C-alpha cells in the first residue's frame, strides 16, 4: 500500500535527520554574537540567506536547492568560526554546490554568472576554493534530509488518505512558508521533521480540516514527536508567518545594490534636464488679459473681480480677447 511505503520512508528519513542538523552550540554562538562582534551575527546570516533566496528565484532554481544551500551554510557556520567578510563567498559556494546536486546540469548557472549577478567581490577561483573547503568540512554529505524532505512526505501521505480533496493542501504555499522560516537562524535549530510538521499543522488549522488533522496526529505519533516540542515550534512558526504575510512592506535597502548603467545612459541622466532657467519668472497679473488702453489706466492694482467675470473660462473661442473688451466691469 502506498501509505505504508510512505510511512516507512518517513521513518527512515527520521532516523537520518540528526546527521544533517547543524551543531546547536555553533548556532547559539551565532545568535549571541552582536553586530559589532568579530564573528557572524544572526542578522548577518539572515540577510545572506535572503540574498540566497533572491538568487535562487532569479536563476529559477527549485526550493530544494535553496533549502539544501541553507542547510549546508548553517552546518558549516556552526562548525567554523568565520569572518563576516567571507560570508558572501561561503553562502554563494553553498548555493552553487546545492545547485549542482539538485538541478539538471544545463540549469546550473556558472560561477561567473553567480558572481556577476550577486555583485560579489571575489573571483571564480576564490569561489571554487571555498567550495572545496566547504565540501571537505561537511564530509561531502550533500544529500541532506531537510524540512523540505519531510514536507513532501507529509504532503504525499495526506494526499494518499484524502484522494478526493487533492487541491486542499497547497504544497507550493507550504514551501514558500518554509522558505520564509529558513530566513531566520532560529529555525535551523529545529529538527526538520518537527519544523515541517509545525508548518503542516498550522496550515491544516487554517483550513479547518479534521480529516487532515487526524492524519497529522497519526504522523506525529508514528514519529513520536512530543506535544510540547511541537507546540513550541508551532508558536514560533506562527509568529514568523504572521510577519511574512503582513501587508507592511519592509523598505528595500538600496545601498546594498549597485546600479551600473552604460556610459550613454549615464550621460543622459546628468545632462539632459535643466534645473533653473535663465529667464526670471513673470508673475501672472489678475488683470493682464486686458488689451484696452483705458483699462490699464483705470485699473488700480487689486481689481480681483474682473478676472472672475472675464470670459477665459467661458465657452467660446480659445482666446476670447475681444469678448473681454465688450464686457464692462
Amino acid at each position: 500500500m502506498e501509505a505504508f511505503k510512505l510511512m516507512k520512508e518517513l521513518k527512515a528519513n527520521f532516523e537520518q535527520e540528526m546527521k544533517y542538523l547543524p551543531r546547536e552550540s555553533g548556532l547559539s554562538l551565532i545568535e549571541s554574537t552582536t553586530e559589532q562582534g568579530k564573528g557572524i551575527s544572526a542578522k548577518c546570516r539572515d540577510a545572506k540567506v535572503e540574498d540566497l533566496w533572491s538568487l535562487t528565484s532569479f536563476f529559477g532554481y527549485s526550493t530544494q536547492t535553496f533549502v539544501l544551500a541553507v542547510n549546508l551554510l548553517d552546518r558549516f557556520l556552526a562548525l567554523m568560526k568565520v569572518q563576516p567578510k567571507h560570508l558572501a563567498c561561503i553562502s554563494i559556494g553553498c548555493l552553487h554546490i546545492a545547485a549542482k546536486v539538485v538541478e539538471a546540469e544545463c540549469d546550473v548557472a556558472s560561477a561567473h554568472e553567480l558572481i556577476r549577478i550577486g555583485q560579489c567581490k571575489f573571483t571564480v577561483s576564490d569561489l571554487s576554493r571555498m567550495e572545496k573547503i566547504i565540501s571537505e568540512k561537511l564530509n561531502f554529505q550533500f544529500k541532506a534530509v531537510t524540512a523540505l524532505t519531510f514536507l513532501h512526505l507529509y504532503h504525499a501521505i495526506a494526499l494518499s488518505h484524502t484522494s478526493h480533496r487533492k487541491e486542499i493542501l497547497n504544497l507550493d504555499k507550504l514551501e514558500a512558508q518554509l522558505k520564509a522560516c529558513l530566513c531566520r537562524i532560529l529555525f535551523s535549530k529545529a529538527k526538520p521533521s518537527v519544523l515541517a510538521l509545525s508548518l503542516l499543522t498550522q496550515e491544516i488549522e487554517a483550513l479547518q480540516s479534521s480529516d487532515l488533522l487526524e492524519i497529522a496526529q497519526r504522523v506525529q505519533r508514528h514519529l513520536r514527536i512530543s506535544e510540547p516540542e511541537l507546540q513550541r515550534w508551532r508558536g514560533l512558526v506562527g509568529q514568523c508567518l504572521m510577519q511574512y504575510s503582513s501587508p507592511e512592506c519592509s523598505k528595500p535597502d538600496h545601498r546594498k545594490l549597485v546600479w551600473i548603467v552604460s556610459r550613454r545612459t549615464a550621460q543622459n541622466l546628468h545632462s539632459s534636464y535643466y534645473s533653473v532657467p535663465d529667464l526670471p519668472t513673470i508673475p501672472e497679473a489678475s488683470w493682464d488679459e486686458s488689451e484696452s488702453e483705458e483699462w490699464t489706466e483705470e485699473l488700480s492694482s487689486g481689481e480681483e473681480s474682473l478676472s472672475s467675470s472675464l470670459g477665459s473660462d467661458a465657452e467660446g473661442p480659445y482666446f476670447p480677447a475681444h469678448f473681454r473688451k465688450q464686457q464692462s466691469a
Partner: protein
Amino acid sequence: ILAMSSAATTPPSVDKVDGFSRKSVRKAKQKRSQSSSQFRSQGKPIELTPLPLLKDVPAQEQPDLFLKKLQQCCTVFDFMDTLSDLKMKEYKRSTLNELVDYVTVSRGYLTEQAYPEVVKMVSYNIFRTLPPSDSNEFDPEEDEPTLEASWPHLQLVYEFFIRFLESQEFQPSIAKKYIDQKFVLQLLELFDSEDPRERDYLKTVLHRIYGKFLGLRAFIRKQINNIFLRFVYETEHFNGVAELLEILGSIINGFALPLKAEHKQFLVKVLIPLHTVRSLSLFHAQLAYCIVQFLEKDPTLTEPVIRGLLKFWPKTCSQKEVMFLGELEEILDVIEPTQFVKIQEPLFKQISKCVSSPHFQVAERALYYWNNEYIMSLIEENSNVILPIMFASLYRISKEHWNPAIVALVYNVLKAFMEMNSTLFDELTATYKSDRQREKKKEKEREELWKKLEDLELKRGLRSDAIIPT
C-alpha cells in the same frame, strides 16, 4: 573653353550610424553663405556724416544727438559684400556700441520723441525676411546652422534694445504706442532664424516685452500658440521652438492659482502634441520643464498629462523613447501619491514594455527608475498592483535578454520587489512557473500531434503507391 575641375568626385569617407551614412556628409557640398533678402547693393557707397561722441557734448544737447545717432543707425549695410563700405560699417558699429553704453548708464535721456526713433531703428535693422534655409535638407540635429552675416551690427542692435527695455527710465505706457501687436508679430517671425545667437537675443527681448506690456500678453500667447500648432500639424519646421518654450517656462512658473482654463487647454492641446514631432530632441529639455512646471502648479493635471504621453509614446524611435522615459521620471519626481494611484496601471504597463525592449538603452533607462528613492516609495505603497504588472516581463527578460548588463539590473529590480512584498512575489513566481510548464506541455503535445500527422500522411502516401499493402 570651360575649365573643369579635375578633382576626383569620390565622396569623402562616410560616417556610418546604424549602417546609414550621415546626411551632413552625404551632402558634401560647399556651404553657401547666407543671402539675406534685405540687402541690395546700391552701387554707390553709403555716406554718413560722422557725429561727435555723446560724452563730448553738454548734457542738454545729448537727447538730440541721441536721436540723430539713432536715425543714422537706420542705415543698413550689405554684409554679403565683405569689401564694401568698410569705413562706414565700422562707424555704425562704434556708434551702436556707444548707444549701448549710453542707454545703460544715462539718466534723463529718454524723451518721448526717443521712443519712436528707437523702435524705428531696431525695426529697420532686425525686421527682414529670413533667407530660406538650405532647402528642406537642413537637419537641425545634424547640420551646422547658417549664421547671420550682419551679426556685427545686429548683435549690438539687440543688445541696445534689451538695455533700452530694461532701463529704469523705460515707460511701457509710452512705449506701447510703438511696440504693438504688429511689432510683436514681426519679432516672432524672427524666431525662425537659423542663427542661435539671434534666437537667444530674441528670447530675452520677447521675455522683457511680455513682462512689461500687460496688454500684449494674451496676444503673444495666442501667437505662440499658432506657431506651435502650425509646427506640429503643418510644417514640422521652426527653429525657435526651444527659445519660445523657455519663455513659456518663465510664464508658466508665474501662473496664478487656480489655473485659468485657457492655460490648461494650452497644456493639453499644444504642449502634449509637441511631443510627437520628429525633432523633439532639440527642445525636449525645455518642453519637459514646462510640463513639470504645470504639474507643480496644478497636480490634478497629472492624469491628463501622463495619459497624453502614453498615448503618444514613441513606437519606432528608441531615441525618443529614452527622452520620454526621462521626462516621465521628472514628472514622477513631483507627483502626488493620490495622483500616482490614478495612473499607475497604464503607466506601469508601458514601463513593463520598455523594460523588455530589445534596445538596451530603453530597457536600461526604464530599469533605472528603481534607483529613484521617491518612485520606489510609491511603488512600495502600491506593490500589490504594480508587481503583477511588471512581473512577467522582468522574469522573462532575466532569462532571455541578450544584454548581460540589463540582466544584472533586472536582478536589482526583482530583489527590490522580493523584499517589498514576499508573499505576493512568491505567488507570482509560482503562477509564472506553472503557466510556463503548462505552455511547455501544450507545445510538446502540439509537436507530437504534428509528428503523428506526418507519420499518418507518410503511411497513406506509401499505401496509395502500393508500397505498403492496404
